[in-house]
């Protein structure tokens, strides 16, 4: 009897995974693309460990922002300002390091993110402007401020310590950036799945009225996810700055689309209530993987854009539940 039960359970687990293949498409798709690239691009060095670590280096900033975006989308909101905030933070951190050293730089970068997030959250929850518009406007404001205070030129960072910790360094062959991605992924996953705050985020996005009737302060939840998102964007900007040893307003430009794509590819709903941080990380890695493979294939930039768009549409279309 017990024997049959165990067998049944194994079969059910496997059946459950395949039965929910649409939900798990990101993992299946990631594996499929990886295998295809490995087979077709092996002679161009795709499987070379250095190339794979490069994918991590190029993906970490997107992943960091996408983890926070998972919270924003799960709460039924959106943050379009993350790319611009990353650029702004890269400039403020570089300027502060030049004046008062690395520690002040880190504080300045974080403060930039928190300040933008508080402003976004205040406009969205207190004034009642939809986050789509608030953060769309903030995208321009943040970029404008970054251009203005830097005089549109790059601000160099002359602190090797800062650069090592924030994106430039590596332990042996393993880049520090990999640890940043892992930390954000693990903390994000635990907070979303296993804390009251995460549950409140999912509840707010899943049914705002029901959540507020259940005693959840949905405004506060939205405020917090927007602050988290901007702060994570600032961290991403600091990583860009450390890796390139300078702050520039162009850093992170256009990242908001990759960030949202990573989260949605991973299985987070654009309409709230459903989110998975692990899926988001894999989604971000998949975008990096695609970019890398298309470059190795020798496609022109224009062709890369078209191919990347097509692959993302295919993945999201396959994950749609057909009614």
């Amino acid at each position, binding site marked *: 009897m017990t024997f049959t039960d165990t067998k049944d359970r194994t079969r059910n687990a496997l059946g459950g995974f395949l039965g929910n293949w649409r939900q798990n498409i990101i993992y299946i798709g990631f594996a499929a693309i990886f295998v295809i690239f490995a087979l077709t691009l092996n002679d161009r060095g795709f499987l070379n460990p250095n190339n794979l670590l490069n994918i991590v280096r190029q993906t970490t900033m997107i992943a960091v922002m996408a983890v926070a975006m998972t919270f924003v989308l799960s709460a039924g909101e959106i943050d379009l300002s993350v790319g611009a905030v990353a650029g702004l933070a890269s400039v403020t951190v570089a300027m502060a390091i030049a004046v008062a050293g690395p520690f002040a730089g880190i504080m300045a970068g974080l403060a930039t993110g928190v300040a933008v997030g508080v402003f976004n959250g205040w406009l969205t929850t207190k004034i009642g402007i939809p986050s789509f518009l608030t953060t769309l406007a903030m995208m321009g404001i943040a970029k404008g401020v970054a251009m203005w205070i830097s005089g549109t030129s790059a601000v160099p960072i002359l602190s090797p310590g800062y650069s090592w910790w924030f994106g430039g360094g590596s332990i042996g062959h393993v880049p520090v950036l990999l640890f940043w991605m892992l930390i954000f992924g693990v903390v994000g996953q635990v907070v979303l799945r296993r804390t009251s705050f995460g549950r409140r985020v999912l509840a707010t996005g*899943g049914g705002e009225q029901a959540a507020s009737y259940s005693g959840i302060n949905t405004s506060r939840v939205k405020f917090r996810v927007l602050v988290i998102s901007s702060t994570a964007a600032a961290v991403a900007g600091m990583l860009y700055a450390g890796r390139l040893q300078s702050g520039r307003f162009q850093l992170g430009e256009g990242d908001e689309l990759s960030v949202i794509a990573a989260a949605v590819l991973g299985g987070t709903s654009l309409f709230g209530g459903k989110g998975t941080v692990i899926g988001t990380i894999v989604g971000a890695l998949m975008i990096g993987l695609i970019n890398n493979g298309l470059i190795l294939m020798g496609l022109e930039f224009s062709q890369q854009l078209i191919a990347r768009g097509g692959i993302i549409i295919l993945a999201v279309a396959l994950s749609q539940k057909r009614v």
Partner: protein
Amino acid sequence: MAPVAVRMKGISKHFGGVKALDNVDLEVLAGEVHALLGGNGAGKSTILKVLNGVHVPSAGTIEVAGVPLTTHSPAASRAAGIAMNYQEMSLIPTLTVAQNVFLTREAKSGGLIDDTEAERRAAELFAMLEVEIDPRAIVGDLGAGQKQLTEIVKAISQDARVLVLDEPSTALAVSDVDRLFTFLRKLKTQGVAIIYVSHRMDEIARIADRATILRDGQNVTTADIADLPVDVMIEHIVGKRSLGLADVARNVAVQGDVALELRNVSGRNKPKDISLKVHKGEVVGLAGLLGSGRTSLAKLIAGIEPITAGEIRINDRPVHIRRPSDAIAAGVALVPEARATQGIIPSQSVADNATLAVLDKLSKFGFVDAAKMRATTDAQIERLSIKTASRDHAVSTLSGGNQQKVVIGKWLASDPDVFVLDEPTAGIDIGSKSEIIQMVRDLAASGKAILMISSELSELLTACDRIIVMAEGRSHADIPHANLEDPADVNTNAAHRVQVAEQRLQIAIQNALKSEQEISNDLH
């Protein structure tokens, strides 16, 4: 006398210039079921939201177990021991049953949420209530009845001293209602005060100890249930002498040809092998419990769910219905179950809603003819006596009954031959209910064929010429109205006759269930 659990004194509440509550008192004792009655717009929901902290009262005081409530917020009310289940559902569709039940009070181990523990505790609660719901199921996948039970379990799991139930039985099967009542009686003995809102008078008579009746935002009376026979209750609620449903004139229409015929029709899951005929001028009812396949059958006919076998014939011609537009073209109109989401577009005007189904007819070269639109809308407003400030007011500003009339008017404008009505009076007060039922009779008299679903048997009996009893997706009995009445009954009291018929119909439904159970027993 038992101690007072809730004392609300002199509560007033204004919304802009509108007075929703005017100096209302409500006193509920510990260990009693206190019915709160009133028509739509009487102020029931408002006073409950004041009690629950969603609304801040403009004037008045609230005491819970003798302690005045100084702050008005959902958190403060919950802390005072008030738990509420809402008509609009306080469940998050994307979370599991267990996660919903313990939302904001999650079980934790080592500071992190422990869903396994929550599932275990939810399973215990369900076992105590004898409810069969999988705590791991996603709420969005549950049926309406299971959602409602989850909702109630969530409310009672909060160790509430005061439990507010707003229309808890709307979506429940008879057996579920019995189970709920058994449970409420258990809670009573533990000293919990229960405020019970329902439009179903028979339920009130069965479960409540006392009742407070509101009308137009004011107190009408508070009395023991024993001193409030149903006709007195209705009189207080409606404000004028009314026999309720018994008022509806059952003028027998001349029946014409068969307008709608189903031959061995099955759906993906339910219904199974249904054959039926509805004549012009006839109202056929579908009786059965939740999950009997009535709504699926309606959706099949309206092209919302696919037919897997059988044939649908309209006016003696076979039709292929694959999507709603096919059904509309064939002359079928569905008045759906969920009025707010499937029937109307709440933020749009009465005129926009009423002409939605005939936009093409009213348009030339893609432009809507405003004059025709006004004329069509006014015709429906007049024909159905829809009470609205103007045709340009948003439908959401109308009462539930009048919203339903707009839905019916929308279809009338397209002049269909067959009406399928799914719970047309759900959540509508008793005064408007009889108006809607009268309208159904009038539609039939004008030659329409009508298939009507209702969980309120008295309503089916008042509206229908014939009632088909369904269970587990199959049709079990096809009973002409006359067969449900007792020919030997010389009692001329209409309400009494409906009561007798209701008992017989109830027995037919139970028999259908029993034979389904026997079938499934044979299979195993």
